[in-house]
């Protein structure tokens, strides 16, 4: 590790910031209804960033810069790379949708998305409580505005209000918790906090209680951002109310950043308190699996169902995170957190596919967000039905689709601990995923077994159509050869733990 004022470490963030401003300016001159130039420039920027980050990540170097404020490591760079690609896919799928809903009258969709991505970048590479918090705020403020982008739409405005109020509360929780930890340890940098706690300095001052109380607030704030029960109330409303393209941004790329901040705060900063936060995560995980899966069964709105399914998947993700430290031994940690990273990456990939299909099927004045709207899709378009079915089976965790290996990795991390409690959790998780299988199967049933109710032709651009095919194929291909991505995640986390 080299501690330096290395500007090049923050090169992606700087480039993104500059380009976001440039695109906002360029957009002033764009008059076409589809915002062709803005779109093209955005895609170009994102593509360059993705390639750059991919190269950067595969070099495997870890560099801390700006006086310990930011870090550039393989995990962060891979997550940034994936988030960039996820945003590209989101915009490709959602462009037509947005233009049909009057969301492209200005270029805000693009610029705000870029600023949201910048927030994610900062969140992912922050190495200091304040930097992490700033990144989070940049992301969430952009997201609130994006949700409210259709300001004449009642549902979207309501969703934006809910999101804003609850999100602000959560940020407050997080900040409050962080300040307590700061008070107990006397520093904001992640390694310093870790050293202070591990070295017993914090406890010597008799501030153990403050530390734990702060931890409770931190975990609550993170649970809000992840959407884990009982901090999940905003998720279904935002998914349902927000324009689908924004819902995909909130439920897709953002989740990668949320995962990163959890790892940064809990693992890199508060690892010595693992015994405490693992218990909290266990409660969150069990509740999320239970509530998410059971509530999803009752939904008739597809986006709402996917929201509850997200909640249950966050439960599964947390299961991976809580298996890291077993009785003070962190030998299983890299394995466990690696499994969670694999889980979140594949989850985002699958989510892109499902929302992509919803976006493609929507027309002006028709949202296509009820499960019944998919009726007979196989007869209307075998391609879209196939992509959706692959994604649904993957979310249900049926091999040979990638979702299965995500579940396998997490279950393996749980069982590797050899703790009866964790084995019990694993059994609970598989029983819950059986319940989950029911509502995913129902979507497949509607698409394949029911007769079509819609007859309108599905019009989708060539780019969205081909990207969606690639997306579906990737869910399948990564299911047949998941080894590469698994190793990538494991190595990224391992270099973080080293």
């Amino acid at each position: 590790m080299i501690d330096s004022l290395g500007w090049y470490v923050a090169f992606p963030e700087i480039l993104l910031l500059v380009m976001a401003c440039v695109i906002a300016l360029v957009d002033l001159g764009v008059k076409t209804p589809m915002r062709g130039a803005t779109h093209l420039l955005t895609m170009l920027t994102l593509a360059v960033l993705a390639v750059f980050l991919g190269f950067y990540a595969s070099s495997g170097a870890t560099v801390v810069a700006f006086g310990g404020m930011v870090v550039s490591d393989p995990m962060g760079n891979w997550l940034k790379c994936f988030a960039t690609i996820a945003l590209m896919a989101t915009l490709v799928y959602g462009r037509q949708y947005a233009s049909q809903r009057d969301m492209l009258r200005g270029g805000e969709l693009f610029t705000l998305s870029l600023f949201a991505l910048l927030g994610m970048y900062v969140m992912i590479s922050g190495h200091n409580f304040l930097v992490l918090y700033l990144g989070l705020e940049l992301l969430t403020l952009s997201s609130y505005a994006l949700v409210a982008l259709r300001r004449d739409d009642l549902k979207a405005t309501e969703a934006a209000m809910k999101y804003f109020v609850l999100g602000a509360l959560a940020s407050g929780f997080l900040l409050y918790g962080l300040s307590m930890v700061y008070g107990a340890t006397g520093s904001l940098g992640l390694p310093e906090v870790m050293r202070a706690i591990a070295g017993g300095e914090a406890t010597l001052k008799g501030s153990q209680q403050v530390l734990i109380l702060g931890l409770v607030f931190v975990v609550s704030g993170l649970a809000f951002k992840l959407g884990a029960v009982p901090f999940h109330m905003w998720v279904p409303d935002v998914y349902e109310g927000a324009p689908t393209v924004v819902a995909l941004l909130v439920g897709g790329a953002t989740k990668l950043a949320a995962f990163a901040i959890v790892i940064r705060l809990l693992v890199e900063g508060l690892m010595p308190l693992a015994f405490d936060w693992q218990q909290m995560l266990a409660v969150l995980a069990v509740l999320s699996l239970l509530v998410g899966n059971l509530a999803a069964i009752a939904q008739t709105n597809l986006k709402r169902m996917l929201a509850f399914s997200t909640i249950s998947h966050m439960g599964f993700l947390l299961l991976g995170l809580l298996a890291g430290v077993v009785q003070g031994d962190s030998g299983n940690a890299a394995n466990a957190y690696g499994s969670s990273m694999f889980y979140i990456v594949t989850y985002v990939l699958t989510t892109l596919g499902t929302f992509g299909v919803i976006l493609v099927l929507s027309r002006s004045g028709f949202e296509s967000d009820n499960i019944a709207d998919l009726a007979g899709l196989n007869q209307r378009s075998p391609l879209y039905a196939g992509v959706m079915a692959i994604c649904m089976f993957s979310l249900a965790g049926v091999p040979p689709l990638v979702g299965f290996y995500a579940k396998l990795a997490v279950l393996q991390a749980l069982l590797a601990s050899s703790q009866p409690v964790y084995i019990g959790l694993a059994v609970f998780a598989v029983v819950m995923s059986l319940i989950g299988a029911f509502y995913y199967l129902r979507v497949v049933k509607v698409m394949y077994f029911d007769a079509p109710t819609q007859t309108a032709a599905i019009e989708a651009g060539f780019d969205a159509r081909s990207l969606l095919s690639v997306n579906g194929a990737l869910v399948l291909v990564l299911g047949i050869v998941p080894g590469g991505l698994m190793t990538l995640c494991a190595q990224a986390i391992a270099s973080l733990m080293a």
Partner: protein
Amino acid sequence: MGLLSLAIWTPILFGVLLLAFGRDDQAPMVRWIALVGALIGLAVTVPLYTGFEIGSAAMQFVEKSIWIERFNIHYHLGVDGISLWLILLTAFITVIVVISSWEAITTRVNQYMGAFLILSGLMIGVFSAQDGMLFYVFFEATLIPMYLIIGIWGGKNKIYAAFKFFLYTLLGSLLMLVALIYLYTQAGGSFDLATWYTLRLGGTAQTLLFFAFFAAFAVKVPMWPVHTWLPDVHVEAPTGGSAVLAAIMLKLGAYGFLRFSMPILPDASREWAWLMITLSLVAVIYVGLVAMVQKDMKKLVAYSSVAHMGFVTLGFFLFSDLGMAGGIVQMVAHGFVSAAMFLSIGVLYDRVHSREIADYGGVVNTMPNFTAFALLFVMANSGLPGTAGFVGEWMVILAAVKANFWIGMAAATALILGASYSLWMFKRVYLGPVGNSNVKALLDINAREFLVMALLAFMVLYMGIYPKPFTDVMDASVAELLRHVAISKLP
């Protein structure tokens, strides 16, 4: 690429091609491509038999390469005397199903044929996997095509049946997944079956694992009392789906007992053998009686499948070479016979669109050729000497009598019950005067149906008259398995 890989991936490749490029208006071409795919799939399995070294218990045609490095999962295939005939059976039944669905399926033919071809490759994968996770992936993946086959081309109540099939079997296999991962950690990070066979496991762990595997395999077999999904699913599934389900998918469960439960958990297997034997006998006798009162032909054959599979599990858990070989022979025989039974019902259903026994009567008057075949299959189903159905049942009964007279006695009643429900159904459907105008209007089987029936009839008779090729290959493997089961794995 080895022979086993070819056997797995050829049908899958053809299936994927049909799914990707087939269109509804090209149905005739789709059918021919599907047939070619199935025939090539069958052709590549033939060298497995001709090149099989009889008398060796070792895995043959082994292919092994790393698949998922992170979890030390290998793409590890192999075949021994236990799985050889099941693989051949799978490829054979696939050809039969493709031919028999030629005219019956008219909508979305490419998806139908594609699903069957993919299913075929996946099932061969299950029978040849030598790595626990590879097995699980193939085992579970079969659910997807079958779910779609039942749901899209099934009968009136198809949606209920498709969900019942999927969720029922998924519950069992998810528990097995936990068991597999547990074994993986106990074995120090290996999914290799051969490693698991040497693993020492405590009594409680063995019992828990045994029931986790039991949940997966007993549901699949299906054993009483978790058999209730089978009649519902069979009734609603299209003919081809029923045939594949009965002929091969049920064997996945029984095969699992042989590959996992018994050699990995010998102590628990012996300890709980009484339970397995009891459940098997209940299946044989009680479900046999249930079959007798069915009004729906497909339901009757479905219940008779449960009874016949009871023989298979009974044979396995007697722990004698005769019983175990008998169980395996019975698996293969039931594959031919049950497929033939369901396809016969399909022939009638295509014409009259009813499965009710009461809607028929005197079919022999209008369809003499077909009735001749049907009689042979019914006889085989009731275990008549000289047909495939006899060999396995006889071996199992003999082994049961050796183990305990009363078990043998109870098992032997199945011959009476089997004859009763099969022949009584035959009498009501085929014999007597012409029952109604529908039956009067029946046309005898055409050349295509004749071919299907003749192929199955040949196999049923061949296996009944000269079972040596079937039993010879499995002797060494059965002896090896029994040797494994005899060694205690308690630490």
